[in-house]
């Protein structure tokens, strides 16, 4: 008949497991947090890239004379909204609504991201509507608000039509 564990063996197992857990849990936790952090940053980069390329693609087609830079309502940031029509007569709006960045295509609205921290449409000079700078920051708090992932993107768009 085979013998079972001795008490010493059992105690050794318990001790080793204890040490492993004591060391391993914080390490795993940090690794996990870093992975989540990196993943979130990438998501934010991707969201910012998608939103940015959507805005620039449509804005290039805009007519400069139709551009209005304003804000969605009085609780939003100044110049966080741009309205314009394209050369083929379609109306677009992009604006900040709290933490949402919203695209309005005709009467359809959709949210491009809900992690918005900062959005501004600026001109070098108010008398020149042909070059619009867009600055956009996405931010997401993680781990109970203790750490945050951030991505800032900026781009200049040359409006092609009068």
């Amino acid at each position, binding site marked *: 008949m085979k013998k079972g564990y001795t008490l010493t063996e059992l105690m050794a197992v318990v001790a080793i497991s204890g040490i492993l857990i004591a060391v391993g849990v914080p390490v795993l936790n940090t690794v996990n947090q870093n992975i989540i952090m990196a993943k979130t940053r990438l998501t934010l980069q991707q969201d910012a890239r998608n939103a940015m390329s959507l805005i620039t693609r449509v804005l290039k087609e805009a007519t400069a004379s139709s551009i209005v830079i*304003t804000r969605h309502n009085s609780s939003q940031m*100044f110049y966080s909204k741009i309205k314009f029509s394209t050369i083929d007569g379609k109306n677009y709006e992009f604006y900040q609504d709290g933490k949402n960045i919203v695209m309005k295509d005709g009467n359809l609205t959709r949210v491009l991201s809900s992690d918005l921290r*900062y959005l501004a449409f600026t001109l070098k*000079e*108010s*008398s020149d509507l042909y070059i619009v*700078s867009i600055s956009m920051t996405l931010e997401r708090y993680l781990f109970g608000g203790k750490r945050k992932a951030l991505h800032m*993107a*900026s781009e*200049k768009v040359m409006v092609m039509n009068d």
Partner: protein
Amino acid sequence: MSLKRAFTLTELMISVVIIGTVLFAIVEAYSSIQKAVQYSKDRTIATNLAQEKINIIREKLYYKAVPSLNVSYLTDFDPPIPYDTVFFPPETVLEGGVYYTRYTYIVPVEEVNGSIVELPPQSPDTGMKKISVTVVWSYRNEKKKVSVSTIYTSKDTVMRNASIGGRIRDKDTLAPLSNANIIIAEYMGIVDVSDSNGNYSASIYPGNYTLYVQKRGYFPYLTQFSVGPNQSITKDIDLKAMGWGKITGVPWLRDHLVISQIVGSTKSPSGFDQEYIEIFNPTTYTWTVNGNIGLRFQRIYDDTKKNILINYFTDTIPSGGFYLFANTSSVIINGVSINADAVWSSTNSSIDFPYFNPSLGKYNIIPVFGDGSDEGGGAIELYRISDGKILDQVGWNRNDGARKSAPFCEPGTNCQTQAIQQNIGLQEGEQYVRYSSTAGVSSVYGPSYDSNNNSINFKDYLSINISPRNSLNSLPIISGTPADGSIVGCGDGYSVSTNSYLVGSPPYSYFELNYVATGTWNFSVSSNTYSFITDSITVTNGSTVTLNSFYLTSEVTWGYITGNITDVYGNNITPAIKVLSSDGNETYVSNKKYILMVSTGVVSITANPGNLNPSYVSVSSNNISINAGEIKSGVNFVLFQGARISGKVVIAGSTVAVPGIPVLITDIYETPRDNQITDASGRFITNVLSTGSYIVIPQTDSKETVTPSKYTLILTSPGTTVFSTTFSITNAIGYIAGSVKFQNQPIKTGVLIVASTVSLSGIPPNPPDISSYTLSGSPYYMASSNEEGNYLVEVRGSTNPAYNVYSYYPYLDNNDNFVIYWSSRTNVKVYAGQVFSNINFSW
């Protein structure tokens, strides 16, 4: 009932280790996928940054995109990437947590038959410039780059609506000359090549030019002409044949010790089985052998080379000297005793060398045919002990048996040496002796011929024909290793470098350099780091200078650029013209010629940099690549004489200087000839322009006005600087800059900055909506702060009224609601062209 066995502690621990390893591998794999994704994101951002920079430059006036005159090269990449260091210096941008550096390079280009050709930076403006932006960043300790280029065309592109044409002939025979290069000095490029009837034609921009016609074997011809819009002019030119000769030669390398003789077995009078290996030093310097030079032997049965343990008696081997390794302290050949300089140590392993075992009376490392067991093939290697560098290898085959090939060199494999071909291998009494030259073995010349092919570098004798030589002997040298592919150049300024090539069997290296102008010149032949350089090779008309066997022995790490620099009449210029290379070397032209030592790689050359001789223009040639020891001939410049124009730009109604205003200088046909930007003191000074009439036109954007809008003047005296006038400008650009902080930390998320001479009302101060209705009236200027918490706003210079600067920071409170924090500064007086910095905001 059978009881199941429980896990043992060991099993448990093993399983913990296995699980741990698997977990670790998963985490690693995950992170490497993350990194790959990160790289593609970095790349996208880099591309956007490059595109953005191009847009920033294209937003500026065409004449603000000044061609890059001060160029450095990014040598991390191949080919090196040129970039501007003055007008558009490198800038570092932080985005998404990564630092990117943007490099800009602008070069004038023109379209030739549908393709874009780059021109030297000082070329007259063609209405087209190529802007290249390279963005570089570090990814896992490696430099990565993205390059984007675009062509920026001026809205008033100059048309090539004038033309020049004609016929090129030999002045003496009047025969048409084909393949003559037709060069416009001001374009610094070949505009046409004469055809088989000697005819040429080229479309050019209207203007005053210097025509430069060049053909190998003829003196170059220079003439000046002027051509107006839609005008065609004819210039028939007869070239005078130049005296020329050629240089031929046979270059050799002498860079390593060689194995010059091998004997595997020869009996002494007492019957001792002697073996020896003789070494020869064809280099120009003495080598230390004791403890520094070793031998290895590889037997036919071995897969690896085995080091031979050696006791050295003689320390060194001088240039042209011998050194004798043997298995006995004195070798007796044909009754003469010759002392060995080193002998095999008695501690050599009898496992490595089965025919060596002093206790059994066996003293041979190298087996011979007579030893039986298919022996007879083998190979000897001479190497440097400190770093294992192989100096020479000699192998010999036994072609009749199963073990036929010398171990170092199976046929068809990539090995340094082709073995000596032997039917039954090395025999008793047989000797292999290295050739002294391609003519074969000689007893009066050093055995130094080494084409890295043992089968044609050695002669075998079935009895000892050439006695072994030791450190008491030396012989003169007439060969070496053929310097195949070496670069041959002459500093005559006309000939074009050539390469040496192998001829004959056994081969030697040979070159023929044609069309060398008559005279006494610098001349160099180089192969990698070894060169032959002389400053006194004399070529006479119709003759050939023959350099029989000569040696590349000087070690060099630099190259030479040479050429002619003359005025437009083909004359020498005084005071002497300076020539400067981008790596900081310089020289002066002497009697129309220069020779400049430069470091290897890619360099730019500038003749008369900074108009050091103020009567002449400064001209550059970019992207010249040069190898060690190479003489690059024919980098020629024609410098035309001229003067400079200066001027000043100030704010209208004041004496305040305006920096950064582009000023265009055209000739009377309105062809742009120079482009400058005002400096910190509002002044500009042109490069030297050829004498004649010019128009100075400050370039302004649609909001700026300048008085007078243009100024016409005539340059008459070379070497002078003519002041044009003081231009007054209104509404020119200035800057406001500062930082934004929250609780003393830079704000990374973005702050909106609005500047205006208008005072805003409300809490927070309310900037108006911007639309086509706000085009007129006092303008508003806006910007967002960047990821580093800094901002820069461009505004029209204004001091009265001064600017008000407003900042807005959306703060996210604990309930996830935005609260706009704001701040303002008044009385910010911005002067055109200047930066009002330190307008900082903090909350």
